[in-house]
């Protein structure tokens, strides 16, 4: 057997996996895993036996026997461990690489074509972790969940491993030959039969190649399509200015922000910059004199909506009316009046208008990509009228290689196919057969194309229908380039040879241009040769080292508003409305096979492993005649004082949530789909939101058949929302799984909120009010019989989380999962409360009115209590304190009584009820962080404050100190960055040494609104919170 080859390298693994997929892949992996060769590989990859995998016959499994029956002793004659083997390099790698010390490389990842800079950690040549690139404008050091999860996608064992021709194994050479023939045939008609379908292209290299191709075949056509596209943005700009311009916003200068259904605090172009700038303007401290204010008008509750001071729940279809009314209220010229704004929105409208007027020049009116072009045009007009342009709203030359109305382009393509004029269709990435609007019937049309080529990571719905499938090299395996939201270009560099012989889009284009074996590196370098002023080597090295190409941002423009551009208002719609939104975790479905994302609780709904029809409780009660009075949605007049009424209401709400999972039939524009409902307080009335990206058939082991595919009911004329929806109960129910079932705070002092006015007058007021209510005095005055342990002299690690900055984006959760080898457990395990996330984001609906509640999100991880309740009760001392005050959880000592978790008031401990960590899949082994133990069945685990990073920093510090002859070592603030802190796009988490008064964490800890969760338990948590500070508009604030 080939896998018996004496030495095994990552390349060899790659070789063996090359032609395997599905069950076959598993067989070959098993065969492989048995070979000694593989054990050597793992021995090299995990030199310190961090995982149990690396000892041939597990010593622990031997001990299991011993524990089970001591009588076995000696009889087995088994010795300590079979001898493992070590295969060193033949030639020591150069470049100052020290064996065992990880290296970081700068690169970029794209979402919707727009780049975000990253730093990738490489352990022994394996990319294991993605961090943000502080030098990159779209990252600013933070990342979104997708960037964090790309590592897992790269190692996904379900990825396509070979070239397929009509489903049969083939080769790249065979493909290029066929392609060549076809192109020669096409050259007669100048490529009239050739169509190129890509996703949004910002890569200069790819754009150049396509340009070159189109010159070679003038009659050929290039289309772009993504299901989550920016058609409305493009069309809106064309409407307003008559030309293509890209808009970007500078939230650092914005005092008042109005979002017209724009979820700018969720992943998308510019997310990193927007989230960071926006939160910087509300991360207030005692010295702050000003704080920005956010108004949101939206249908579906979003991260942006819950961050807002004032949120107005409007049907997506009514937002345009609101925009027109606002324009009128602000006296913006030639905006035709629209439908009357609902009565309950009038006050809000007036308040916003006044506030915008008062802060001219420092405001932003931002329209959501799902709102029609008119709304965007109006927003442009308002921003111009308010003098925001050039200050907070910046127009630049288009960032995309070719701004396009993608939906209509896809429609055009399908028509051409139907007309039989397409003979060669080359699809680069994307998955139109799955995610095209239902009315286009793209999947059927695709079958009519004589020769269709699809380049993708997976053999997905499109690949399985195309005549040729080419495996795509993952971004972490490729040379390429891409532009960020502001046009800044970055070089994408590979961290590892393609695991599954994937090809980059550049190689495919090169092949179409006749060079079947082009080197993508050369292609990318060619593109930049011209730009490099001075030595190209220096330019190139700088670009690779910094992760950005200097001064490559798109030039700013000052486009002129066209008069009379804005069309008259469309006829008013009524009745139920259906809204399509990208899924917070799966996006358009391309991440459906990523376990980390699939099991990531969706913001606000906390749903996992399913999509649902989000509906407001009031609407649900009305449409489904739930046996609950709508009055229960409003808190009793007495507030929490009226204990009986409160208790009964809480119980009623609990019963109400049992309606979750009721399956309803949504009939919409001739189409129909059945979905379970999920009650979402704060959702607009008469509006139902469904998430895209589910119901995949060819996603892979994780994503197949999860949730319901709603693309078929999506129509190309109303991509994002539309009326004439009817809802019918089916009488069936379906088990939806959420990591948090309870809605309210039960009146408990868990999440603290105050207003900016009160705060700036007295920073301590927020907590004091609570203490006065609870204890009748200004301070809690907790007392303890136990003396406090003294941690001075050494580092006293602590963490503070700023609730004002947290937007609940989940980046920290995925980052933690990636850094700490946290397994996924599957839907059924989450259903019984066994999810393993070390950091979780709690969500509470507060306020008196559940039709539009104050929604709070609160990241929660091990508090590292100084008086840790878990430690006292562990019978084997498997969780104890160390001298830096960290609560050490020692997996190999844990016997699994679970008492520590019972006694943990924060419930942040996680237990391996089964063998959750995958100990068999090779590629997942390679994805692991060798610095962190892979946990086995029956042990408790929890947040360690990223002890592996602390240890490494401490050891380095000590070595430097002793080398310099000093007896004591110092670790500078910021040297240690925990995974969650590093990933946070809003810098809401700081970690550091509380003994160092200059450290950020010590400063935050000193703020007046700092508080410890459940402080009355005297646990003295090392992780504390900065209370949320809101800056409401006095005219609109209803409750104190």
């Amino acid at each position, binding site marked *: 057997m080939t896998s018996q080859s004496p030495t095994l390298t990552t390349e060899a693994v790659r070789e063996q996996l090359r032609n395997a997929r599905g069950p076959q892949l598993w067989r070959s992996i098993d065969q492989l895993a048995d070979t000694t060769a593989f054990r050597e590989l793992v021995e090299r990859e995990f030199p310190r036996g961090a995982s149990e995998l690396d000892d041939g016959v597990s010593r622990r499994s031997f*001990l299991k026997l011993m524990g*089970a029956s001591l009588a076995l002793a000696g009889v087995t004659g088994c010795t300590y461990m079979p001898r493992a083997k070590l295969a060193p390099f033949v030639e020591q790698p150069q470049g100052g690489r020290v064996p065992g010390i990880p290296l970081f490389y700068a690169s970029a990842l794209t979402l919707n074509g727009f780049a975000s800079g990253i730093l990738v950690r490489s352990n022994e040549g394996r990319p294991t972790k993605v961090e943000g690139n502080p030098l990159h404008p779209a990252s600013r050091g933070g990342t979104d969940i997708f960037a964090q999860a790309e590592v897992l996608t790269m190692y996904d064992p379900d990825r396509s491993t070979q070239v397929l021709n009509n489903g049969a194994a083939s080769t790249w050479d065979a493909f290029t030959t066929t392609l060549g023939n076809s192109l020669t045939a096409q050259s007669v008609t100048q490529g009239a039969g050739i169509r190129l379908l890509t996703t949004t292209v910002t890569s200069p290299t790819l754009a150049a190649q396509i340009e070159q191709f189109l010159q070679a075949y003038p009659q050929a056509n290039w289309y772009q399509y993504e299901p989550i596209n920016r058609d409305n943005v493009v069309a809106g700009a064309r409407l307003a200015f008559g030309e293509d311009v890209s808009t970007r916003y500078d939230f650092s200068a914005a005092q008042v922000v109005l979002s017209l259904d724009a979820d700018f605090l969720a992943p998308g172009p510019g997310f990193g910059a927007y989230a960071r700038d926006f939160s910087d303007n509300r991360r207030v401290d005692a010295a702050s004199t000003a704080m920005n204010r956010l108004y949101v008008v939206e249908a579906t509750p979003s991260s942006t909506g819950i961050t807002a001071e004032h949120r107005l729940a409007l049907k997506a279809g009514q937002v345009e009316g609101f925009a027109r009314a606002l324009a009128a209220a602000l006296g913006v010229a030639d905006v035709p009046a629209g439908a009357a704004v609902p009565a309950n929105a009038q006050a809000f409208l007036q308040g916003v208008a006044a506030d915008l007027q008062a802060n001219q020049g420092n405001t932003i009116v931002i329209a959501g990509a799902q709102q029609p072009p008119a709304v965007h045009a109006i927003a442009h007009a308002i921003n111009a009228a308010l003098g925001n342009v050039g200050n907070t709203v910046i127009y630049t030359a288009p960032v995309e290689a070719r701004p396009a109305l993608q939906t209509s382009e896809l429609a055009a393509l399908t028509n051409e196919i139907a007309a039989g004029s397409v003979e060669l269709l080359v699809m680069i990435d994307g998955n139109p057969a799955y995610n095209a609007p239902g009315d286009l019937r793209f999947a059927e049309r695709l079958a009519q194309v004589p020769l269709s080529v699809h380049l993708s990571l997976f053999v997905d719905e499109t690949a399985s229908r195309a005549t040729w499938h080419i495996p795509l090299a993952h971004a972490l395996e490729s040379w390429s380039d891409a532009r960020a939201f502001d046009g800044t270009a970055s070089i994408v560099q590979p961290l590892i040879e393609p695991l599954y012989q994937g090809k980059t889009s550049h190689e495919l284009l090169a092949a179409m241009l006749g060079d079947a074996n082009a080197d993508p590196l050369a292609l990318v370098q060619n593109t930049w040769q011209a730009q490099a002023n001075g030595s190209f080597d220096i330019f190139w090295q700088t670009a690779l080292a910094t992760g950005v190409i200097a001064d490559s941002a798109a030039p700013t423009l000052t486009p002129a508003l066209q008069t009379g551009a804005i069309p008259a208002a469309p006829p008013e719609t009524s009745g139920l409305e259906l809204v399509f939104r990208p899924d917070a975790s799966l996006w358009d479905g391309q991440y459906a096979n990523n376990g980390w994302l699939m099991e990531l609780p969706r913001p606000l709904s906390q749903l996992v492993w399913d999509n649902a029809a989000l509906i407001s409780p009031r609407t649900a009660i009305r449409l489904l005649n739930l046996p609950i009075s709508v009055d229960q949605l409003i808190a009793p007049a007495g507030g929490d004082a009226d204990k009986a009424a409160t208790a009964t209401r809480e119980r009623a709400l609990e019963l109400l949530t049992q309606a979750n999972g009721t399956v309803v039939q949504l009939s919409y524009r001739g189409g129909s789909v059945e979905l379970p409902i999920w009650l979402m307080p704060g959702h607009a009335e008469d509006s139902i939101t469904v998430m895209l990206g589910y119901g995949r058939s060819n996603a892979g082991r994780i994503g197949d058949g999860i949730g319901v595919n709603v693309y078929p009911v999506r129509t190309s004329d109303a991509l994002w929302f539309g009326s004439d929806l009817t809802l019918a109960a089916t009488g069936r129910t379906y088990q939806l799984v959420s990591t948090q079932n309870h809605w*309210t705070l039960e009146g408990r002092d868990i999440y603290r909120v105050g207003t900016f006015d009160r705060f700036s007058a007295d920073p301590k007021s927020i907590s004091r009010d609570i203490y006065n209510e609870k204890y009748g005095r200004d301070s809690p005055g907790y007392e303890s019989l136990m003396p406090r342990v003294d941690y001075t002299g050494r580092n006293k690690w602590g963490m503070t989380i700023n609730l004002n900055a947290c937007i609940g984006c989940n980046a920290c959760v995925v980052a933690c999962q990636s850094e700490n080898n946290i397994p996924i457990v599957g839907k059924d395990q989450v259903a019984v409360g066994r999810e393993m996330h070390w950091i979780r984001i*709690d969500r509470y609906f507060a306020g008196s009115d559940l039709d539009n509640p104050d929604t709070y999100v609160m990241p929660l991880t091990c508090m590292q209590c100084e008086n840790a309740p878990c430690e006292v009760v562990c019978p084997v001392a498997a969780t104890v304190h160390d001298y830096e005050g960290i609560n050490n959880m020692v997996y190999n000592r844990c*016997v*699994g009584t679970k008492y520590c978790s019972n006694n943990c008031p*924060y419930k942040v401990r996680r237990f391996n009820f089964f063998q959750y960590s995958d100990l068999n899949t090779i590629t997942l082994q390679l994805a692991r962080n060798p610095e962190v133990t892979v946990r086995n069945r029956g042990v*408790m685990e929890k947040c360690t404050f990223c002890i592996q990073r602390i240890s490494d920093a401490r050891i380095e510090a000590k070595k430097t100190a002793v080398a310099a002859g000093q007896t004591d070592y110092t670790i500078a603030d910021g040297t240690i960055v925990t995974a969650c802190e590093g990933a946070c796009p809003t810098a809401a988490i700081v970690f550091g040494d509380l003994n160092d008064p200059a450290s950020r964490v010590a400063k935050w800890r000193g703020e007046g609104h700092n508080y410890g969760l*459940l402080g009355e338990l005297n646990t003295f948590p090392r992780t504390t919170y900065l209370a949320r500070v809101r800056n409401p508009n006095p005219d609109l604030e209803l409750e104190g």
Partner: protein
Amino acid sequence: MAQAQPLRTRPQPDDGESYLLPGETYTSLTQKIGDVPLVSPLKTPKGWLAGFTVAFFLLMIFLMSVTWLFIRGVGIWGINIPVGWGMDIINFVWWIGIGHAGTLISAILLLLNQGWRNSINRFAEAMTLFAVACAGVYPILHLGRPWIFYWLIPYPNTHGMWPNFRSPLDWDVFAITTYATVSLLFWLVGLIPDFATLRDRATNVWVKRIYGMAALGWRGSAHHWHRYEIASLLLAGLSTPLVVSVHSIISLDFAISQVPGWQVTVFPPYFVAGAVFAGFAMVLLLMIPIRSFYGFQNYITMRHLDVMAKVMLATGMIVVYGYFMEAFAGLYSGNVYEEYLLTNRLIGPSAWAYWGLLFCNAVAIQPLWFKRVRQNIPALLLICVLVSIGMWLERYVIIVISLEREFLPSSWAQYYPTFWDWSLYIGTFGLFFTLLFLFIRVLPMINIFEMRLFLYQEEEKRRLLGPNTDAEPIVRPTATTD
């Protein structure tokens, strides 16, 4: 003298006043009790066979559940985060509680010189042992990694580490092992004279040998009796504190924590009372059928049932007081979490358990105030069943309901037992009854020589009260009656 014809003194009419009905002689006692184990295997009563078969089947279920547990892990149960302990610990506490009656009867009543205990102590002690055995398996099985349970034991190891002596779970190890050991010793020592009796009565030589070995050469000399009395007094003295200590320490498993509903100062006494309560219920439950099956109504009289029922009532009322105190503490504390705990018990999703426990343990025992009920067998049986269920529910309420809803509403979750939770619980009944059936088959389930002693005392009383013609000439009983 030649073997006398076995007397078949049929049960006498029971006036419900005496602990030993008239008409019994030393011989009749010895024969009626002693013959049960000596019956040849072929003549084994059908009823016993039937019962044993069922018990053995359940025992197989136990083995199956444990095997699957070791193969897959504790995930096969319904436990989760936040409810880390479920039926494993509930059943553990329940069984260990049942165990308590035995020690109480054998130790404390002995010291109090309560003669009536003589006819029930052997059985109660056996029951204790078997209950402790059932309880004992749970602390090991509930571990995530049961194969290293021995890390809880302080022994010189290659880790250079001790267990955490601050943890109540570690105290359990000592409490339970001590309790089991002492109870076993007490029981075995008490058996020695009876082993001798069986040895002497047995006809089959092999049976003679086996009982002979167990009798450890007992000859019934005054020397032996003297040693014996001292030994049993010492053991009684040893195990008396254990009655209190074991369940107090079990209760600390909870009281030490800070979980609302666990951190209750009244737990130790309240757990001990509850244990005795449950224990007596179980003794009654088992003794009533067996007594009629083997025709022991003369030795285990209505008066016995009556007294045990009284003990149940008394301990039951203490438990009810415990419930009252918990509720009061919740309201009086002014602590939002304690208050909510009460609300949750009363109207929460698991309220059925709380109401059920109040009915079984508080309401159902009230009829025991009346002698008519205490001496009415069906009524007693019903109440005992209810109490056993009630005490199980009590542990469910304390352990599960408290954990389901702690401090942060975000982590609230319900607990649902799975098939394997139940199968293991049912399986432990298999373990319990298999042992019990073997016990009543091969050992004298009533203490023969103590009964003789008791008979002597009773006869003495009668003689002093007046001439008694039926009575045989009084002979100081010895273990060997030939």
